[in-house]
């Protein structure tokens, strides 16, 4: 026998027993497996045990010769095995016994509960209730559990004598069976009786075995082989290191020592040269911040369902409409369709197409970032004052002055506010009493009256009217008689001086015939061309006229007291529309078609040039304060200029539908108005603050209508009452209206 082979087999099959000297490795294997499978057979095991002991003896004898120490060890081992196997066999036998006593059925076949013993289902009742029956209870199926046979006292005695396990046999009350307590049970009972730990571990304070210790063990705790990656250098680390090396090379990054050195060497008091360095944003973060996400596709709606609700399906009309439309104008680019089941949905034909377009969109579409502000749009609108707070302003028609037979081109209230002069195409000038609408005077003229203007000086009662190429100065003889007579006497007291006659005047001043004098006409200033505009200076001594055509002399300034005329501009810079004197300062406003030039009359130079953003200026008026002007234009705009602010309009109002004819400021109230060919007069609140920091407040307050439109002409002139918040308007319907 090969001892080496035998030992090997022994080591491989630990806990098994070589029944016979194995002829080969294979047979011994089989034998051991057999022995394992039939371990429940007690007798056989016992038999093999005896065999084994004998064979061991033999072995020991055989091996003694070769190695003593070895054999000693082996025998110890074998003895250990023996005791262990005995124990095991016993417990197996116990189980066997219990099994055989209960109808040889698997106790867990029907019942999976964790309860200790459910074979008897009578519950927790005194068992002695069943003493008189031959059954002790019922099993889960309701069958009686028959009491096991109970021997009489003789049997008991015999058992006591015969059975060596009698002392450790107890009776299970529930089943009436006898149970032989195992050593372990006994051990446990003993421990409980001696008040020690029932679990059996005697040494509660056994030293702690630290498996995962810091000590390097010969064998690892887990048998898992190390990962491959632990043998390969990290790619990312390499990349990172590479970046750092590059940064070091380029000087972007510096070794710590150098940084410290640089810090130490830097003068702490030296000013930082780059003021904005903290504000500079690295490119990468900027890109992240400015990232614009792709636009989201809308989520599919009910119409896109394979089984949409009825209302989403097209009826015939809608379908025809859908078919008729160009793909671009369709509301949705598919027809809702209904399928009986999801399974029946065909392949989506336009899938590729749509994907392509989506990608194309994402790729091609220039997306721009919208700077969103969380501002309530209401807050951006400047606060409009309530109209009620802006009263008084004219609100309704108060009076109609009837009497002219043709369109009334021009009106002018007298400075006291009692009279109103009007000039009409029926070649008359009329003077009205404002309060009653009574026509007080009618002064016939030679031709159409284009312009009337009351002398602003209250101590002079003089009305100027322009008729064709003449300026006619009229004393209408209304109002204070003393003033009227003074006016006449000052006009008559003029003595022609020699110097003025020498000068070649562009116009001729002349007194009038007696017949005209009786009518009230006092002076006539004959121009060469038709006069288009007339204006008084605020003091009432100077006045300016604009005449048509004649190039160098289109603007003329006349002085009443000396009866002199001069042409201030040798060459006007365009077609002069209107001229005006500044109410306070020696400025002269000349409005050409698109510009307003302000000349300083004292210094004789151009003071300012205003850019009106309109094509054709029709009218101009200056705020009584003198720092703001409004202009109206034939392209239906009204521009408000703040002379302190800019040469561009402070505000442009385009509320009229047609050309503006006249604009006017009120002398006292913060009101201005514009009259337009669309038949309306729009009155606006225009408050100018004395505080230089506040811009004028402009609010449109009222649209006044009344004049009828004839020949595309409606309102021709509008003027405010000098003291009341009333406005006069004259129209092509030959009436003058007063709005109060």
């Amino acid at each position: 026998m090969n001892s080496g082979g035998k030992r090997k087999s022994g080591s491989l099959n630990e806990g098994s027993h070589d029944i016979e000297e194995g002829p080969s490795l294979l047979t011994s294997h089989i034998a051991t497996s057999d022995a394992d499978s039939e371990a429940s057979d007690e007798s056989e095991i016992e038999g093999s045990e005896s065999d084994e002991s004998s064979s061991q003896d033999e072995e020991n004898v055989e091996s003694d010769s070769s190695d003593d120490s070895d054999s000693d060890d082996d025998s110890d081992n074998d003895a250990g095995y023996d005791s262990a196997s005995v124990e095991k066999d016993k417990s197996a036998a116990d189980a066997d016994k219990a099994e055989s006593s209960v109808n040889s059925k698997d106790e867990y076949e029907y019942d999976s509960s964790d309860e200790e013993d459910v074979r008897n289902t009578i519950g927790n009742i005194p068992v002695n209730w069943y003493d008189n029956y031959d059954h002790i209870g019922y099993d889960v199926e309701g069958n009686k559990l028959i009491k096991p046979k109970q021997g009489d006292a003789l049997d008991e005695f015999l058992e006591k004598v015969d059975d060596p396990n009698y002392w450790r046999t107890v009776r299970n009350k529930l089943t009436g069976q006898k149970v032989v307590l195992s050593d372990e049970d006994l051990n446990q009972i003993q421990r409980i009786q001696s008040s020690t730990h029932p679990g059996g571990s005697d040494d509660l304070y056994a030293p702690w075995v630290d498996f995962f210790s810091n000590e390097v063990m010969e064998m690892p705790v887990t048998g898992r082989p190390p990962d491959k990656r632990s043998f390969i250098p990290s790619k990312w680390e390499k990349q990172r290191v590479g970046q750092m090396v590059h940064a070091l090379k380029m000087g972007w990054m510096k070794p710590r020592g150098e940084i410290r050195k640089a810090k130490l060497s830097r003068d702490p008091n030296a000013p930082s040269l780059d003021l904005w360095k903290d504000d500079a944003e690295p490119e990468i973060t900027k890109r992240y911040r400015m990232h614009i996400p792709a636009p989201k596709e809308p989520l599919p709606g009910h119409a896109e369902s394979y089984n949409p609700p009825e209302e989403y399906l097209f009826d015939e009309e809608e379908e025809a409409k859908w078919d008729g439309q160009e793909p671009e104008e369709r509301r949705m680019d598919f027809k809702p369709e209904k399928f009986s089941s999801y399974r029946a949905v065909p392949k989506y034909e336009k899938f590729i197409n749509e994907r392509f377009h989506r990608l194309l969109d994402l790729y091609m579409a220039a997306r721009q970032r919208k700077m969103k502000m969380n501002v309530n749009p209401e807050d951006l609108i400047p606060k409009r004052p309530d109209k009620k707070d802006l009263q008084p302003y004219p609100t309704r028609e108060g009076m109609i002055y009837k009497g002219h037979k043709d369109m009334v081109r021009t009106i002018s209230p007298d400075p006291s506010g009692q009279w109103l002069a009007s000039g009409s195409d029926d070649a008359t000038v009329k003077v009205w009493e404002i309060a009653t609408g009574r026509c007080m005077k009618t002064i016939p003229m030679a031709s159409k009256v284009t312009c009337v203007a009351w002398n602003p000086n209250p101590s002079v009662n003089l009305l100027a009217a322009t008729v064709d190429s003449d300026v006619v100065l009229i004393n209408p003889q209304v109002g204070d008689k003393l003033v009227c007579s003074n006016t006449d006497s000052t006009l008559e007291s003029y003595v022609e001086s020699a110097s003025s006659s020498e000068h070649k005047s562009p116009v001729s001043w002349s007194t009038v015939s007696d017949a005209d004098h009786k009518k009230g006409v006092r002076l006539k200033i004959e121009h060469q061309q038709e006069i288009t505009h007339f204006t008084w200076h605020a003091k009432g001594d100077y006045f300016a006229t604009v005449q048509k055509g004649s190039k160098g002399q289109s603007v003329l300034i006349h002085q009443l007291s000396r009866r002199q005329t001069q042409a201030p501009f040798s060459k006007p810079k365009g077609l002069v529309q209107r001229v005006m004197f500044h109410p306070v300062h020696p400025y002269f406003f000349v409005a050409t078609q698109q510009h307003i030039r302000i000349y300083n009359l004292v210094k004789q130079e151009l003071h300012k040039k205003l850019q009106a953003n309109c094509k054709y200026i029709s009218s101009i008026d200056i705020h009584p304060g003198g720092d703001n002007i409004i202009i109206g234009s034939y392209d239906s705009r009204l521009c408000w200029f703040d002379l302190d602010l800019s040469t561009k309009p402070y505000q442009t109002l385009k509320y009229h539908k047609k050309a503006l004819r006249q604009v006017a400021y009120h002398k006292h109230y913060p009101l201005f108005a514009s009259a337009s060919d669309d038949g309306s007069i729009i009155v606006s609140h225009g408050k100018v603050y004395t505080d230089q920091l506040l811009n004028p407040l402009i609010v449109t307050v009222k649209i006044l209508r009344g004049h009828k439109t004839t020949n595309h002409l409606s309102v021709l002139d509008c003027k405010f009452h000098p003291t009341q918040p009333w406005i006069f308007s004259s129209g092509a319907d030959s009436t003058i209206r007063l709005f109060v």
Partner: protein
Amino acid sequence: MASEASLGSISHVQAKFFTKQKEYSIPDVPYSLPITVSPKELNDIVHNVLYEGDNEKTAVFDFLINGELLRSTLEFYLEDKEISIESELEVEYIERQAAPRPEASLSHDDWISSVRGNNNLIICGCYDNTIKLWSRDGQCLTTIPGHSGPVKCLTWLKRAESSGEDEEYLFASGSHDQAAFVWRWKGSKKEIDCLYAFRGHSGSVDCIDANGDGERIITGSWDKTIKLWTADNTSTDQNERDDSENTHQPKKMKSGGHKMITRVPLLTLGGHKEAVSAVVWLDDTNVCSSSWDHTLRLWDMSRAEQTQILEGSKAFFQIAQSPLSNLIASASADRHVRLHDLRTKEMKGTYTSHAGWVSSVDWSKSDEHLFVSGSHDCLMKLWDTRSPKAPLYNLIGQEEKILAVDWSIPDLMLSGGADNQLKMFNYKKFLIMK
């Protein structure tokens, strides 16, 4: 719901009727009235109680609730005033004002700017610079061509001076020619004399008023001043100038040899910032003036100073004081007639119905609740102060804008305007249904 309401589930309100006129009083029993009841139906109810079917002579009543005339159905009234229908209403009934009857139309040559009545005489100021004197029955007594400008204002100096045969009337006129004249009309001789000429204004004289005894005259002018003059013939001659010195004397005087005295003002009161539109004597010392500068001012003439100022929102064209209630009614360009109480300085009410510029107002001299207003919308309206939303009657007749109204003669309302006609309306106090 609607059918329910029509079937008679209309809410009812408890009401008691009472009156201050003893002859019409009815028992003080509360009645349950449907809220849809109108003044006419209320009238029928009162009639039934009062006359019990006797229809021979019945007065017509108007109904007042809380001092305001009921002009619509009760429902509207309660809604408007937010009165609960559970509260008991106290309904006062008064005899209804009779509708004024148009009486005569007196034709003039030009616009009438001013009209005043007194007893049985009417004076009219015209734009043709004349004053026409009419008798009560429409007879033109005389035409006075004194002024050189349109006559703007007139006033009687002694309102009812009748002394039998030798009746003598004084009146004053103001004009655009900046002068005011005092005239004397001798009824027996049919003679007109110009007693005084008041010169001194530098604007047209727009308003004039005389105090109770007719000796103090105030004028207001476009030159923003108020001047006080005397028409007292016993006053010293230091204020007087000889007529011949004056360059602006009236060209033709029909006075038979009587010498006209020109007087300068006793007092000039400045304070108004715009033209003075009306002046009224409140009593013997106090004057109220209105102006285009949106203010009413009170002046004490004995101390020659301004005592009070009332700010309005619109230019005043005319004011009138009620002799009974002492309220001031004002006419302005914005269609409203306003009532002011000078003692409390507050506005008592706004009467809006005119469609145009209100040019003139005048109070009834016999009834503290009634006044008339004339407007450029050609209508004269009779108002009750207790009915601010609608006038009692619209007096139609004028074809052009009305410039002047007058109710100095208690049973005669006068209006004159731009159609050259003086319209007279007869006014009887109460309406008696036949």
